[in-house]
């Protein structure tokens, strides 16, 4: 029996449909937004409340071998954060990388209904899928790591760096083999160099030793292939030189290499640094305004911020070189794991301190990216969970954006030398509106992910809805505890409590490819992998189904 719901009298914030706080009813039936429902529909009185589409997190790290190693690495942080078993709920633990059930519950309690795992080794797809199947309440997808794939390097070299039919077919094959949703490039070429010799690739035009390709060619060829395939989400790029002073130059070169085709830049804050040339200019500084200027002139590019929040974080990345640098800075725990042919992985627990120059600068640069940008559709909210901080810190981040008084107070607590090297003290009085928050937390990410039924409340949209008490005095509290969360047309959260468990859907994408690509890939697999070509693809129905398949549109 389908549930019919009428959400009555709330202020609707649906920027994808140009609705900005209009007081009206919203009707849900059969898991979709509909024009009207019958008189017996359940009525939710939303007067005085704010109604938005369910949140969509475009970039987080929640599942797979990397997240699980981080869990095993951090029993100390989860003892104080247990999740109790109940008739409805599985038990688990929180901390910076919650157990899978806790991850699903807590995202739901925050009003999020869709989350993207942003970096999965294709070889580990079975593991990623199994964890996602144990992550309830949210629809979820994962991006497969391809920026250091030796097989793709061979195809790119063979085509002289151009997009070739074989490269397109190979990418489509890999998505079909894994159940992935999109393509992620992490430090293209650089992870391979790290695995060779603990080093990094020297700029985007340096050749990757042994492969005859450059990061620029990888960006252009794979970015171009994804674009030509028409995947729902464009290539998702963690650029070279993450965290390195002066890396904004590399980021601008990366954006330039990608320009002219759709692309998304991950955690831009970590790639927006000046300085590092020695002398008085050696201290890192912000170059966020230059990156924003470039974005303003290139509407085909988008980014998520990767805001750092003061406090504890868990850095975990496919960019193993970054983790090795942090290991040497910090001296604490460190995990490295290299995956053959495809990628690396590094994990280092980390604490961002308000009084530390570099950390405060990172915090300030993130806020600059939010506050100086002209188009919220291009710059989306993320903390690169848990790299910059937990997803549980999103409400505080939202308050920083919406409440200048609160922001000024927080600015006063941060390292002033760093803050003075940002634009935050230059009378920056911008406060995000509710509609802008709706853009950066649901409408923008959904649109960028090509999820046409998510991120908006038009007729036919998925009935994923979050209803908040309107609390202008405390936006952090407002966004921490939604009054209601509706997932797939069913009420799942009410006043901070989970009322119903939803398994959530797996989202995968599909693009057609020529089956003859097998004849190209099989010998390359035999030469490089220790898993046979035949055993590599995930075929297990229990992992692959049910799923919503989003077809490519070339």
């Amino acid at each position, binding site marked *: 029996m389908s549930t019919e719901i009428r959400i009555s009298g709330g202020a609707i914030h649906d920027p994808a449909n140009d609705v900005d706080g209009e007081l009206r009813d919203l009707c849900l039936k059969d898991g979709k937004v509909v024009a009207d429902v019958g008189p017996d529909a359940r009525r939710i009185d939303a007067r005085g409340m704010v109604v938005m589409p369910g949140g969509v997190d475009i970039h987080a790290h929640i599942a797979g071998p990397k997240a699980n190693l981080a*869990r095993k690495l951090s029993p100390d942080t989860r003892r104080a954060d247990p999740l109790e078993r109940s008739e409805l709920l599985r038990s688990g633990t929180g901390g910076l990388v919650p157990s899978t059930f806790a991850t699903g519950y807590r995202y739901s309690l925050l009003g999020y209904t869709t989350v993207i795992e942003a970096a999965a080794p294709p070889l580990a*797809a*079975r593991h990623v899928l199994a964890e996602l199947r144990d992550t309830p309440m949210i629809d979820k997808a994962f991006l497969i790591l391809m920026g250091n794939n030796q097989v793709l390097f061979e195809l790119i070299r063979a085509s002289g760096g151009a997009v070739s039919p074989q490269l397109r077919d190979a990418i489509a094959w890999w998505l079909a083999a894994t159940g992935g949703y999109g393509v992620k490039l992490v430090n293209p070429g650089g992870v391979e160099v790290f695995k060779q*010799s*603990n080093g990094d690739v020297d700029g985007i035009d340096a050749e990757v030793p042994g492969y005859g390709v450059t990061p620029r060619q990888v960006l252009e060829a794979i970015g171009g292939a994804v674009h030509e395939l028409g995947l729902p989400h464009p290539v998702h790029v963690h650029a070279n030189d993450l965290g390195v002073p002066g890396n904004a130059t590399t980021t601008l070169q990366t954006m330039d290499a990608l320009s002219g085709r759709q692309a998304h830049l991950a955690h831009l804050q970590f790639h927006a640094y000046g300085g590092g040339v020695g002398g008085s200019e050696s201290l890192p500084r912000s170059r966020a305004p230059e990156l924003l200027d470039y974005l303003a002139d290139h509407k085909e590019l988008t980014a998520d911020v990767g805001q750092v929040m003061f406090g504890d974080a868990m850095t975990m990345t496919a960019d193993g070189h970054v983790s090795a640098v942090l290991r040497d800075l910090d001296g604490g725990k460190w*995990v490295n794991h*290299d*995956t*053959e042919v495809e990628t690396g992985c590094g994990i280092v627990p980390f604490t961002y301190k308000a009084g530390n120059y570099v950390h405060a600068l990172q915090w300030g640069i993130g806020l600059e990216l939010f506050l100086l940008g002209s188009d919220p559709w291009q710059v989306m909210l993320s903390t690169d969970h848990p790299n910059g901080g937990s997803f549980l810190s999103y409400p505080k981040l939202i308050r920083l954006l919406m409440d200048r008084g609160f922001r000024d107070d927080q600015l006063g607590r941060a390292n002033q030398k760093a803050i003075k090297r940002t634009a935050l003290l230059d009378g920056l009085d911008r406060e995000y509106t509710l509609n802008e928050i709706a853009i950066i937390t649901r409408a923008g990410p959904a649109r960028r992910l090509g999820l046409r039924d998510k991120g908006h409340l038009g007729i036919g949209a998925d009935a994923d809805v979050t209803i908040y008490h309107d609390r202008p005095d405390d936006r952090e509290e407002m966004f921490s505890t939604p009054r209601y969360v509706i997932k797939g047309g069913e009420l799942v959260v009410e006043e901070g409590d989970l009322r119903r468990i939803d398994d959530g859907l797996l989202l995968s994408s599909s693009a057609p490819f020529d089956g003859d690509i097998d004849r190209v890939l099989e010998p390359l697999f035999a030469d490089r992998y220790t898993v046979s070509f035949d055993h590599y693809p995930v075929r297990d129905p229990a992992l692959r189904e049910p799923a919503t398949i989003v077809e490519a549109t070339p």
Partner: protein
Amino acid sequence: MPESLICAGCTLLCDDVTTDGRRLEPECALGAAWLADRSAPAGDAPEATVAGTPADGKTALARAAQLLRGARRPLVHGFAAATIEDARAAVTLADRLGAIIATGAPAQPWPGAPAFPLRGSSTATLGEIRDRSQLVIVWHEDPETTHPRLLQRLGFGAGRSSTRVAGSRTLVVVDDRDTATARRADLPRDGPADRDVAARVELFERFDGGRHATIVYGAALATGAGGQRRELALHELVRRLSHGRHVVTLSLAGTAGIRSADDVLAWQMGYSGTVDLASGHPELLTVTEPLIDHERIDLALCIEDDPREGVPTIVLSHRAEPVDAEVWIRTAPAGVAASGTLHRLDGVPLTLRPPLRSAAPTAATVLADLLKATAI
């Protein structure tokens, strides 16, 4: 017609194997034993027993559920031959029961807190080691016996996989025993009884100029008295050497089933090893006494492993012959007559491809039935 399968005879999970139902190709002593164990015909063996008496599966399930409902301090343990699917169902049931769940042998004293949560580690998949490591050091282990195709798969010895490493590669064995692996070493065995990892740094000095090295270790280093200290020393050595060169480790400890169950426990609960769910939430247990006595376990549910003495036990096992237990339920042998997923020693997940079929249920199916039958 030979059929392809993935051999789970050890944690290597070789997936280039074929079988005619009796033999494996390529030959492997552990693989042959694994195949024989899992393809033995059930014959007249019952599908289940209750208190040693043959019973049908439904009766056995009802009795098992009754015992679980009445247990004050149940333990779910084992997993040596379990799959990811079995482990997911077992953790779900343990959570519902408020049980202790332990991957490994609860009758043995706890081997010491693992080193990993204290400092981490540097690891790699087999292909990384095969195609990059110029130096491989085997540390007090004998993989030629315990993981017969490891060296071959890492590109050493006769019938070896081809490696992409240019130039010479060196296999060093540090051991005080005359093992089959030691006889394969490229350098004279360099094995004082002392297992102090830090003292081995000179091995790397011999390796001057090399860019990539691997240290293979296992239970001999990491368990028993001082195991945690030795493993920490190993990882400190790796950190110290990881400048200008890339150094990784590969652990041979455990079975694929235990490795896989540990991963499931970590993702569902946040902890691996031994987890107490009695309080309503997961608590990591690090007892140093035999678990069954120390925690006053009054009922054990043993999944695809050898049951322990001293406690009434429900056993789910693929073995054809019943074991002495309150309830024994025969399951389909994963890999040979049932599918399932396992994580290889380097974490790579693989789906087993059984050449045979079994009428018996998988452990995961029995556990799901027990979950329903124990619901209040």
